[in-house]
């Protein structure tokens, strides 16, 4: 049996296990919100561990991983405007985007400066390091608010605000990746300006979203819908990849277009949502296998700086929230730390960047994203719970029956993965 088939089968096994874990029937309440255990497992089977999954193997399957990450972006785009069955409030969404961009800008600025000062990277590499590490890692996973809602019965205006802002923040890393792809040198679309490349990448997504919308508008049957959805998404992602554009951004726009234009948006969400985790976790595993710890000298300094600036920026985010948002006043500035949970979406995007843009800067971005996920895992959910307690939006009595606690949660206080997808129940 060839090595390629062996790796493919291995990834299918991971997908199978993850589909079981999130099924809600067998091992409900197992796992971490970010899928960090798969990240660690990936490091263990990668070149720095057992060597079962060399980077060359990941390169062979590169189109599959990019497609998988793009599919995740499609899922996020499709559910971008809706929490449960409730529409995301536009004002909260704008605030979420602006504050996430603020955090991203702070980290990006710091890394841009330090890259110049220490002569770590120049030109496009410097941009990849700053924009990649800053903006790709600035989102807040939408699972974190739901975790608190489930475990601690959190309900209220602030919970809704945070849920909407977390969901909206996903736009920032996706756009960052689209910009990086558009300004990349040696792009296949040599006759296009970077702005045109950016527009083309997003435009293909919108066009294919409209195509899918009109095709699904009249007839809506599961068998036909899968063919149309897979066909349109693969075509859009494939064309974007061929043109050197960010397939992730293209599919995010396609999902968003469907969410805006299709009258079957809810049905589509219910149809697509169960595919998220089985696709995501193999990507996280492969990302773990690709993490490099020695991309360039002083790498750990850069990683440490990125994480410290991120936490500081989160405190600024919390300060702004508590200053301008009445329900957040009681929660205090540390509510910003509750938004520090980056999800595996960030990790998937950093992974795509590292396989599409080879080089030490992209490798550093992946490492920073991985470190950010682990840090967010330890800080985010606990801080969020405390902030919502201070805001009196948690109900401990309801939490006891909400879901079973895992051993890790009891012992280490580590949060559990949402029992099923975040759409099956509402935040409130």
């Amino acid at each position, binding site marked *: 049996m060839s090595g390629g088939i062996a790796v493919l089968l291995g990834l299918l096994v991971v997908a199978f296990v993850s589909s079981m874990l999130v099924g809600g029937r067998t091992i409900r309440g197992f796992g971490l919100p970010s899928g960090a255990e798969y990240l660690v497992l990936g490091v263990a089977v990668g070149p720095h561990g057992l060597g079962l999954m060399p980077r060359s193997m990941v390169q062979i399957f590169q189109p599959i991983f990019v497609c998988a990450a793009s599919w995740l972006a499609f899922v996020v785009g499709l559910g971008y405007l809706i929490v449960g069955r409730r529409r995301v409030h536009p004002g909260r969404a704008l605030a979420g985007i602006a504050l996430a961009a603020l955090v991203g800008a702070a980290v990006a600025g710091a890394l841009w400066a330090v890259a110049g000062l220490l002569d770590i990277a120049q030109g496009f590499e410097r941009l990849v390091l700053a924009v990649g590490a800053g903006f790709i890692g600035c989102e807040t996973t939408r699972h974190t608010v739901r975790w608190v809602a489930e475990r601690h019965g959190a309900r209220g205006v602030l919970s809704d605000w945070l849920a909407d802002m977390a969901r909206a923040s996903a736009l920032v890393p996706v756009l960052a990746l689209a910009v990086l792809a558009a300004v990349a040198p040696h792009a*296949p679309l040599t006759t296009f300006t970077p702005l045109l490349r950016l527009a083309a990448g997003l435009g293909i997504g919108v066009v*294919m979203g409209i195509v899918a919308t009109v095709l699904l508008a009249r007839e809506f*049957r599961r068998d036909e819908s*899968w*063919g*149309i959805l897979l066909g349109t998404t*693969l075509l859009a*992602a*494939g*064309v974007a990849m061929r043109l050197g554009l960010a397939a992730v951004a293209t599919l995010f726009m396609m999902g968003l277009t469907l969410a805006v234009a299709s009258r079957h948006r809810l049905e589509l969400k219910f149809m697509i949502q169960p595919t998220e985790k089985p696709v995501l976790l193999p990507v996280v595993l492969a990302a773990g296998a690709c993490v490099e710890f020695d991309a360039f000298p002083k790498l750990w300094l850069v990683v440490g700086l990125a994480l410290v600036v991120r936490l500081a920026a989160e405190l600024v985010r919390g300060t702004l929230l508590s200053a301008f948002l009445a329900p957040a006043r009681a929660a205090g500035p540390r509510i910003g730390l509750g938004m520090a949970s980056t999800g595996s979406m960030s990790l998937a995007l950093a992974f795509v960047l590292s396989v599409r843009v080879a080089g030490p800067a992209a490798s550093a971005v992946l490492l920073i994203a991985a470190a950010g996920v682990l840090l967010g895992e330890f800080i985010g959910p606990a801080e969020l719970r405390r902030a919502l307690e201070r805001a009196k939006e948690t109900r401990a009595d309801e939490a006891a029956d909400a879901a079973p606690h895992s051993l890790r949660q009891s012992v280490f206080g580590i949060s559990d993965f949402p029992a099923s997808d975040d759409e099956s129940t509402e935040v409130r």
Partner: protein
Amino acid sequence: MSGHGGGNKGFGTRAVQAGALAVTFGLLYSATQLTPQLEGELGTVAGVGFLLLAGTLLSELLETIGLPHLSGYLLAGIIGGPEVLHLVDHHTVDSLTPVNTLAIALIALAGGAELRMATIRSVAKSLSYAMAIQTVVVLFGMAATLFVVARFVPFLAELGTLPLVGVALLWGVVAVTRSPSACMGILAQTRAKGPIATFALAFIMSSDVVVVVLTAIGMMVARPLIAGSGGFSLADLEKLGHELLGSVSFGTTLGLALAAYLRLIGQRGLLLVLLAVGFGLSDFLRYVTLDATLAFMVAGFVVQNLTAQGPKLLHSIELTGGVVFVVFFANAGAHLNIPLLRKLWPVALTLCVMRGLLTYAAARLSSRLADDEPIVRKWGWSSLVSQAGLALGIGLQIAKSFPAIGEGFSSLVIAAVAINEMIGPVLFKLALDRGGETRTAEAEVSRTSLLPPEAA
């Protein structure tokens, strides 16, 4: 190969589909024009998406003139493939081999699971007569035909009588193969039920065993004739026995394992299990020289007939296969060697016409002897015309075993299969329509709501 079921789609729907098809072609065409220097793996994802979307849309549009969906898939592949618009390049076509492997595995599993003991018993008499007569008539009839037209075939013109007899015999073996994939494709689309569909399914699925045996025997007999020296080697029979028994044993074990999974876990995660089985086990079976098609067919048969899990397995394959099969057939269309077909079409067409006539004559004879229903007598032959991957695989196997005639032989097989691949599904669909077996099916198609039960 989704079970679209047809339905009465209005002009508006068709116009939307035509517009979407234009966008599909236009988008990929623009991408290839903007980056002509890029071919290969970057185009694979786009190629798969294109084949899936264009195949689905074109099949819907061709449905309006009564053509089966398979024809739409094939046509999408031909138009977008390397020989016409070059939207899908040769590298992409080759890189989709794993999809073909998966599709063949799923088709064999589904085919086996569709075969119920009661069904086989009900058509046992017809099946026995048809199998015997079709095999003998088509095998020797086509061998004789090739022998006669050999002087017009470049790679055969110079051959002596005995080697020519050997090659003709091998051609007869290839002619006996049918297409399980085309049969399953048409039945899945039309959801046909009735004597023609039952006969076709039972015959084509069980003929796989006959083809495996005939190929081994044919090569054993032809080898000394073509080589002009040596005698028969019984080692081939030993290999055949190993292949058949091994495949049946493996298939039985796999079937029981799948049934146990379905019983204990249900359909959760079965999609991924099927993918792993299709990719991984096909590779493994090839490595240990077992017949993957036979093994998967036996597995499906075991699940259906020895356990109560058959319906669950069929349902899961239907969900998975709907997408996989479109890509499979569209890729088959893209694979068609148009220049070769242009070169060999007179001989290939003659051989195909003769094969069709022999198949028809053998079907009439066997139906009369078996006292089949009038509808089977009239249309039973229609499903036996299609040829696809199985025939190509056997042609390739023969070409490898006989390098002296290999290249020419495989080219002729490809050309003939191309014609049968395009005509066969149309004939089968026509027969099912005329036999009234698809009309009842359309009424049975259920409208599936995607909302979960509690939300619907």
